C-alpha cells in the first residue's frame, strides 16, 4: 500500500507522453549505484499494521500511578485540545512561507508568542524550539553572541538531562562551561558570585529547579547585570500560573519545556521548547518569529519576520541552524492555555502545589523518610531521603503499581537514597495515601 493514486495504466500513459520508461527515469544514476536488493518486509494492509502496532502498544504498561516528573509531567489534557490539533488544515500544512494561505497557522503562532510573553512577563517570544533542552542550549548560544564573551555558569540544580545535552553541544566549541554546586537544594549565592566575573556571558538557573525547589533570582539578575552578564532562567510553564516570573526577576532570556501545556508524554516527544526575551535582544533570538503587519488594503495579517537572522538568508552567519519550529506543539500550547484560561491555569498550578504539599506531609511522616532539603518552598515536586536505596525502592514500588518518582543517584553521586517525587493535579488524595502505604510496606 503506497498511497499512490495513479493506476499502472495512467503511469504508462504519462511515461508515453514524455517518451520515457520507468527504468529510463533513473538512467542518470550510474548502474553500479542502484541497489541490488533491499532486505525489507513486504507491505501490509492498514488492518494488519494496526493490529501489529496495537500489540506493541500493549507491551507498554501505562497503568502505573504516576509520581514521576523530572521536568516531564502527567497533566490533565482537555479533549478539545486534541480536537483542534487534529484538524488537518493545521497538521498537513508546512512552514507558512506563503502568508496569504497560512493566516491560520500564523495567527495561532502570534497568539502563542503573546501567551508565552504574558506567562513569563517577558517582552518577546519566538515561534518555539524543539524542546526545553535545546531551547536552553540556544539561549546559551544567544548570550554568547550578545555579550561576545565565552564563560557560562550553570547551576547543578538545573535539570541534569539538559546539562548533559549542553556538554555535548559545546564539545567542539571553545566555551568555558562551569557548574556551580547547589547548597540545600538552591543556588549557592556565595559560590556563584565568586565565580561571576567580567568574562561571564550568562548565568543559567532553573525555577522551580530540578529538585522542585522554588527560588527568586532577582539578586542573581542584579549581580549578573552589574558584571555585564545575562541571566537565563529555565522554567516550568504551569508553575507560572502562580510563581514569580522570570520577567519579574529581571531575567534576560526565559526558556523551558512546554510539554506540560497540553502535550502528551509520548515517550519523550514531540515536545515544545519555548523562548522569550527582552525587546532589545529580539534580533539576536534564534528560530522562527511571527510578526503582525498589514496588506495593501490596510487589513491586518501575519507573516514570518526578522528572517535576516535565519539560515536560509544568512547561511553560515545565521543566529542558529534552526529551520522548522514545533508549530503544531505551539498550537497545542495556545489551545490549552486558551481553554484553561486565566483562572484555569492559576487553579491548576495551585492544585499541583497543594497536592504536592499534602503528599510531602504524608510521605515525610513515614518512619525513616525525611525531606532532603530544609526549604519548604517547593512547587509540585520534592526530594525525599529514604532509609534505603532509592532505585531499589522505586523498583519495588513499580510492582505495587506506582511510578513513585525518579531516583537521583543517576545524576547526583551523593544521593543514593534520594527520590524525586512529582504530584500533578491528576493525583488524588487517595492515590497519595496508597503511595504512602506502599512505600511504608516496602521500606
Amino acid at each position, binding site marked *: 500500500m503506497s*498511497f499512490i493514486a495513479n493506476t499502472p495504466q495512467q*503511469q504508462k500513459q504519462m511515461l508515453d507522453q514524455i517518451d520515457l520508461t*520507468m527504468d529510463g527515469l533513473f538512467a542518470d*544514476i550510474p548502474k553500479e*549505484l*542502484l*541497489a541490488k536488493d*533491499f532486505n*525489507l518486509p513486504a*507491505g*501490509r494492509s492498514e488492518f494488519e499494521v*494496526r493490529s501489529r502496532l496495537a500489540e*506493541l502498544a500493549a507491551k*507498554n*504498561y*501505562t497503568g502505573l500511578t504516576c509520581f514521576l516528573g523530572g521536568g516531564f509531567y*502527567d497533566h490533565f489534557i482537555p479533549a*478539545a485540545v486534541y*480536537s483542534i490539533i487534529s484538524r*488537518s*488544515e493545521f*497538521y498537513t*500544512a*508546512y512552514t*507558512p512561507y506563503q502568508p*496569504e*494561505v497560512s493566516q491560520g*497557522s500564523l*495567527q*495561532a503562532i*502570534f*497568539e502563542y508568542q*503573546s501567551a508565552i*510573553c504574558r506567562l513569563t512577563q517577558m*517582552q518577546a517570544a519566538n515561534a518555539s524550539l524543539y524542546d526545553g533542552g535545546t531551547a536552553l542550549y540556544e539561549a546559551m548560544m544567544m548570550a554568547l553572541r550578545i555579550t561576545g564573551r565565552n564563560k557560562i555558569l550553570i547551576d547543578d540544580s538545573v535539570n541534569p538531562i539538559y546539562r548533559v545535552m549542553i*556538554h*555535548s553541544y559545546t564539545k567542539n566549541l571553545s566555551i568555558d562551561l562551569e557548574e556551580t554546586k547547589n547548597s540545600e537544594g538552591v543556588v549557592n549565592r556565595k559560590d556563584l558570585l565568586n565565580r561571576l566575573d567580567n568574562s561571564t556571558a550568562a548565568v543559567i538557573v532553573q525555577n522551580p529547579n530540578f529538585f522542585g525547589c522554588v527560588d527568586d533570582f532577582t539578586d542573581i539578575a542584579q549581580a549578573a547585570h552589574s558584571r555585564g552578564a545575562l541571566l537565563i532562567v529555565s522554567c516550568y510553564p504551569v508553575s507560572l*500560573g502562580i510563581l*514569580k516570573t522570570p520577567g*519579574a526577576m529581571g531575567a534576560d532570556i526565559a526558556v523551558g519545556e512546554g510539554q506540560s501545556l497540553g502535550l502528551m*508524554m*509520548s*515517550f519523550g*516527544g514531540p515536545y515544545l521548547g519555548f523562548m522569550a526575551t527582552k525587546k532589545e535582544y529580539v534580533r539576536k533570538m534564534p528560530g522562527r518569529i511571527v510578526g*503582525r503587519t498589514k*496588506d495593501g488594503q490596510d*487589513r491586518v495579517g501575519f507573516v514570518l519576520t526578522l528572517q535576516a537572522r535565519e*539560515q536560509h538568508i544568512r*547561511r553560515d552567519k545565521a543566529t542558529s541552524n*534552526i529551520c522548522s519550529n514545533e*508549530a503544531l*506543539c505551539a498550537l497545542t500550547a495556545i489551545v490549552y492555555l486558551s*481553554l*484553561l484560561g486565566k483562572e484555569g491555569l*492559576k*487553579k*491548576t498550578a495551585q492544585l499541583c502545589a497543594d497536592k504536592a504539599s499534602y503528599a510531602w506531609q504524608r510521605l515525610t511522616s513515614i518512619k525513616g523518610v525525611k525531606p532532603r532539603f530544609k526549604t519548604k518552598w*517547593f512547587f509540585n515536586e520534592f526530594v525525599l531521603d529514604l532509609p534505603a536505596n532509592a532505585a531499589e525502592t522505586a523498583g519495588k514500588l513499580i510492582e505495587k503499581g506506582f*511510578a513513585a518518582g525518579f531516583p537521583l543517584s543517576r545524576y547526583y553521586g551523593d544521593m543514593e537514597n534520594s527520590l524525586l517525587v512529582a504530584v500533578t493535579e491528576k493525583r488524588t*488524595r487517595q492515590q497519595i495515601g496508597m503511595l504512602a502505604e506502599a512505600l511504608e510496606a516496602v521500606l
Partner: protein
Amino acid sequence: MKLIFDKTVPGRCGVLPPASDVPTTINIKKELLRDADANLPELSELDVVRHFTQLSRRNFGVDTNFYPLGSCTMKYNPKVAERVASYPGFAHLHPLMPQLRMGGLLAQGALEVLYDMDKLLCEITGMAGFTMQPMAGAHGELCGIMIMAAYHRDRGNKKTTVLIPDSAHGTNPASAAIAGYKVASVPSDSAGMMDIDALKRMVGSETAGLMLTCPNTLGIFEKNIRQICDCLHSVDGLCYYDGANLNAIVGKAKPADFGFDIVHLNLHKTFSTPHGSGGPGAGPVGVAGKLLDYLPVSIVIKRNDGTFALEYDKPKSIGYIAPFYGNFAVILRAYVYILMLGKAGLKEVAENAVLNANYIKEKLKDYYDLPFDGLCKHECVFSAQRQAANGAGAIDIAKALIDAGFHPPTVYFPPIVKEAMMIEPTETESKETLDAFIEVMRAIAETAQKDAAKLKAAPITTPVGRLDETAAAKNVDIAEL
C-alpha cells in the same frame, strides 16, 4: 480576525481543572509568587473551539490543496499513522520509565519500535547504525557534524573546514558553522552539478568533510557522486548526506553505496509524517561502521533473551543531543508508514515521485525557462526570468497560483537560479491534479505575456492580500502584551 485575547469576557472559563480533595495550604511564601495573574484568555470551550476552527479554515494544507512546495515533499499523510500515535500505550508512556529499575520491561513496545526503525533505516540507506534523537532535519545535520568532529578529534586530525555546494539548503552551512567549523562553498557547473575540478582544488588536509544532498536542490542526480566521495576520503574527510531529497531514490539506491559516511533523514518528508505547519519533524542520523562509536547515547539494543534495553556505555559517544529518544511519536508514524509500504511500496514511491516531476517538467518547459534540461528526479526547477522581464516574476506567479487553488512551489530557491520556481509534486498526487496544475501554469504564463499587472494584483481570493513584510521587519510587532 480578532485575536483570541480580544474575545475575552472576564469571568468566563473553558475547562475547569479537577476539584481539590486536599487542604488548600498555599505552601509557598508570598515573595515567591507572581504579583498578578497571567493575562490569558477568558472564554468558553465553544469560543475557543470556534476561534481555532475558523483559523484552520485560513490555511492551505495537503488535505485541502495541491502543495508542490519544492524540497519539502508535501505528500499525503496517511490517517492510520495519526490513529496509532494516539494509542494510549504510546501516548501516555513517560520517557523516564526505562531509567527506573525494571521500568524498561514496561516500555518494551516503544523500545521495539525504536530498535526496528534503526534496522529498517539501516537497510533503506545502507548505513550501519542510526540514532533517533535528532528532532528535525537541521538538528540531524548538527548531530552529524558533531559526529564528524568527534571522529576527527579522536584521530588527532586537525580539521577546520566543511565544504558545501552553492546549491545547498541554508541549514547546511549554518549547521557546520554552529558546530565550530569554517564553511567553504563549492560552485556548480553548467550542468547543475558540483564542479568536480573546483572540488579537487578545494579539498585539502584541513577539510573535515562535505555536506551534500543527492539528488541536489535542482532535482539533479550528481553523476560523479562516487568520485566526489572518493576525493573527500583521500584526505580522511567524511561525506555527509543531507537526506532532504531521499524521496527521489528511496527503494532504488542507498546513500551508503554512493560513498556517504553520515546521513540524516527527514521523516516528515520521505516517510510521510505530517509537517504540522512547520514541525514537529524528526531527523534520525545514520552512520557507517567506522563512526558507530560516536553516535549519541542512549542506543536501543536487543538482549539475548529477546528483550529490549537502553545502552549507555559508549565512551566515545558525542553524548545526548535530545532529552530522550527523539520525537518518538513522529518516529512511530514513520514506522507505520514503512510497514505499510514495504519493499515494493517504497520503490513505487521513488518511481512515481520522479515520474510526476518529469511529467510536469516536460509539460511546462515550453512555457517557462528550464535552466538545466534533462532528467530530473523528485522535483524540477524552472526560472521565471522570461516572465519577470515582462513585469511578473516568480512571486507573482506564486500568488496567481493561490487564486487558482494551488499552494505555490518554492520560489527564489535554490539561489543559483534566478527567479527560481522549484516544483515537487510527490508521488501521491494524481494525473488529474497534475494536469489541472499544468493547465493553470500555462494560463498564467500566457497572462504574464499579455497582462502582467493582473498577476501583480494576486492573490485576491484570500482573507488578506500581499502583506507588507518590510514593515513587519522594521516595526517588530511580535506579541500582544
